[in-house]
């Protein structure tokens, strides 16, 4: 099959960018979106042109490196799928696709489809952890965790930090990302001692980074490749308000 790609090209953070059109012939339906870009890039390199820069690493949907908009949808049309696992069989022969980087003030473009997501790291830095010095832990089975809580914590902990939620949100809010971590740790007995402080600090850091507020639109949940549910935002809001009152 053949596809036409319109790809956002931007040399660096300061330079203006524009869409560029590329023909992709000989597309195998089993190829992933990133393998298609590999093929396009090989051709560009041989022609002496700059290849399209895009972030990727594990290519099995778990590292969270990859991600861009395909026709305005974060990670493209397939639910619960990152672009590295999005195969071409989901597109039609001759289809035109528009690839753009995540758009958010807190995620400035570095080059082409690559953005700077270090704001996410700084949100985790602001309390997204349980402080337990190495070697000071009690026996694993001394802390009993009801199966149901463990499962719900795991649902939230599955977040890969790709940033699709921010990119999809009209407010560019980091609520789903922040809520996922607050929920993961807050659902476990180990996470209780720092629960109040964690929610206050993480939410404040999210605001400081320039992400927008959450207005319960739900676009984030719709595009999340790990199907993190909106409930984590409700949990975060509750924890934040409770912690604010307690202070």
């Amino acid at each position, binding site marked *: 099959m053949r596809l036409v790609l319109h790809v956002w090209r931007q040399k*660096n953070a300061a330079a203006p960018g524009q869409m560029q059109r590329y023909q992709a012939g000989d597309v195998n339906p*089993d*190829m992933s979106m990133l*393998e298609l870009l*590999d*093929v396009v890039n*090989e051709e560009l*390199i041989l022609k002496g*042109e*700059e*290849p399209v*820069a895009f*972030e990727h*690493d*594990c*290519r*099995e*949907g*778990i*590292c969270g*490196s990859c991600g861009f908009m395909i026709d305005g949808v974060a990670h493209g049309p*397939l639910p619960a*799928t990152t672009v590295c696992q999005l*195969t071409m*069989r989901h597109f039609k022969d001759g289809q035109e696709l528009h690839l753009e980087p995540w758009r958010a003030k807190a995620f400035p473009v*570095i*080059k082409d489809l690559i953005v*700077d*997501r*270090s704001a*996410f*790291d700084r949100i*985790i*830095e*602001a309390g*997204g*952890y*349980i402080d*337990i010095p*190495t*070697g000071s*832990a*009690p*026996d*694993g*089975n001394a802390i*009993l*965790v*009801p*199966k149901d809580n*463990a499962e719900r*914590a*795991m649902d939230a*902990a*599955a977040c890969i*930090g790709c940033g699709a939620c921010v990119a999809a949100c009209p407010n560019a809010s980091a609520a789903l990302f922040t809520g996922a971590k607050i929920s*993961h*740790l807050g659902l*476990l007995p*180990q996470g209780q001692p720092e629960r109040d402080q964690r929610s206050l600090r993480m939410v404040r850091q999210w605001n400081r980074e320039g992400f927008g507020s959450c207005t319960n639109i739900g676009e984030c949940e719709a595009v999340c490749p790990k199907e993190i549910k909106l409930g984590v935002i409700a949990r975060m809001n509750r924890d934040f308000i409770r912690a604010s009152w307690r202070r």
Partner: protein
Amino acid sequence: MHLVSRVPSGPIEKLWDQARFEMKLVNPANKRKHTVIVVGSGLAGASAAATLGELGYHVKCFCFQDSPRRAHSIAAQGGINAAKNYHGDGDSIFRLFYDTVKGGDFRSREANVYRLAQISVDIIDQCVAQGVPFAREYGGTLANRSFGGAQVSRTFYARGQTGQQLLLGAYQALERQIDSGQVKMFPRTEMLDLVVIDGQARGIVTRNLVTGKIESHAADAVVLGTGGYGNAYFLSTNAKGSNCTAIWRAYKRGAAFANPCFTQIHPTCIPVSGHYQSKLTLMSESLRNDGRIWVPVKPRDRRPPGEIPEDERDYFLERRYPSFGNLVPRDVASRNAKAVCDEGRGVGETGLGVYLDFSDAIQSLGAGVIRERYGNLFEMYQRITDEDPYQVPMRIYPAIHYTMGGLWVDYYLMTTIPGLFSIGEANFSDHGANRLGASALMQGLSDGYFILPYTIGDYIASSKLAKIDASHAEFRRVEAGVAALTKQLLSIRGHQTVDALHRKLGKVLWDYCGMSRNAHDLERALERIRELREEYWRDVTVGGSGEDLNQSLEKAGRVADFFELAELMCLDALERNESCGGHFREEYQTPDGEAQRNDDDFSYVAAWEYQGPDRVPALHQEALLFEYVHPSQRSYK
């Protein structure tokens, strides 16, 4: 070069206690005067950096990804072993030690493996306390499952995302230290060389992958937790960015490289589907708990699996290894899969695949239970292949997955360069010639949380460390070398891309130094790799400049190192005239096709010392003595 393993003497269960007691300590107030560089932020690197930060050292941590959370440890699926014996099924520290030494086909250092088994229990405690959401039983206790090479249930897991959850635990501990200012993180920064001054590792030279700036960082000790080199084969289950550059440059600065030919081929990966393929996807070994592996009895049987009656199916692992069945170790499972495909009994379009069938398990346990256990893996399989494994058996084939070889380290995890440490997959230490499933996570975290933080203190306390910063002339010299290499790669402007040449290298390695090897092929491979390397430096085209983000340039430097390492892998494989674990030499096999070790001549670690460009490296041997687990022909029958 003289290899001194520094294993204390005494009964094996007391060695680590004794070593810790004998170690010199750094006064808490003095720790902050010392800088430690940690390269890599996977399970080993992140846990080491976090713990060193906690102890009060000034830590600089580097990763090439945009965030430390991306390291490839994140992709580990199945689980982590620990000798907790929570199920009372006969597990113990000694049994985990025994299984690991046997699983490694008697090519690992007993003392290291024993320590690993001892520490395994502390790792689980640490990770639980950090909030890692391990699977639980209804009563709230930790759940376990079985893995290959073991007859007890000792594998802890978090669905099919154990590596992700353990890494996020370590990453969060690291972020905690970044928040407190103890650790400074350098993401999107790649180590391109090691700086050795007066025989001690004193820093690294890096390239900022966004600006292209070459920079120097000085320290009192350098730790490499940079993972394995499976990507030498081009197609592997490793992340695309995984590379050998840090350990290879360290090798060229004098660190011995041990057992480079010990590579692990994982039996359960999704088969290759086309020439454009960029990587292979692993399906967790845990699937072998409930899935049954089979091929048709008749060669070239093209019927769909559902139409092949039970008596025309060959469950070859269950048939050949009745006591371990589908749970034989990885090397055995991979080799047997290759053998049945070589007989023409492989399945799928290419004939390079075997079935992994869940229909019996679904029938006896119900689809719900299977979904709960492996749901995300089944989804992943379907997403890639467009086939529903609840309805038709999965097709799997072995793929390069892990490298047991790596930088030689002593009991203190220090390489042959004083002050240079290596942890996790980057070192050679604990898995011998074959790693058991769920042991990589255990080793990475054992090294990073519980071993290195002690041993590095001993090094700092007992060494004379001159005051050196990055203004030292040696840093300028190494920087100039790095800049020159970058410039050279950019200036070739040939006709082939980095990937195209890397694929050629990968094919040679896979064909001649893959699942089975022989002297004739290895000699051919050595010749072919030299030719390809020459072709690379003559005809590669990189494009772009060195002054900004240039992914093709990043790859070009890594692949240049893979070419050199590939040669060492083949040399090592050629020199080791025996079969052991993942290293199967066709000339050395038992009458029924099992690996035939030669303990009289090859019970050693092969540690290679760099002798300069285009000179044959020197081989040093560390003899392996087995006092507790007596080497025997490994049997899983």
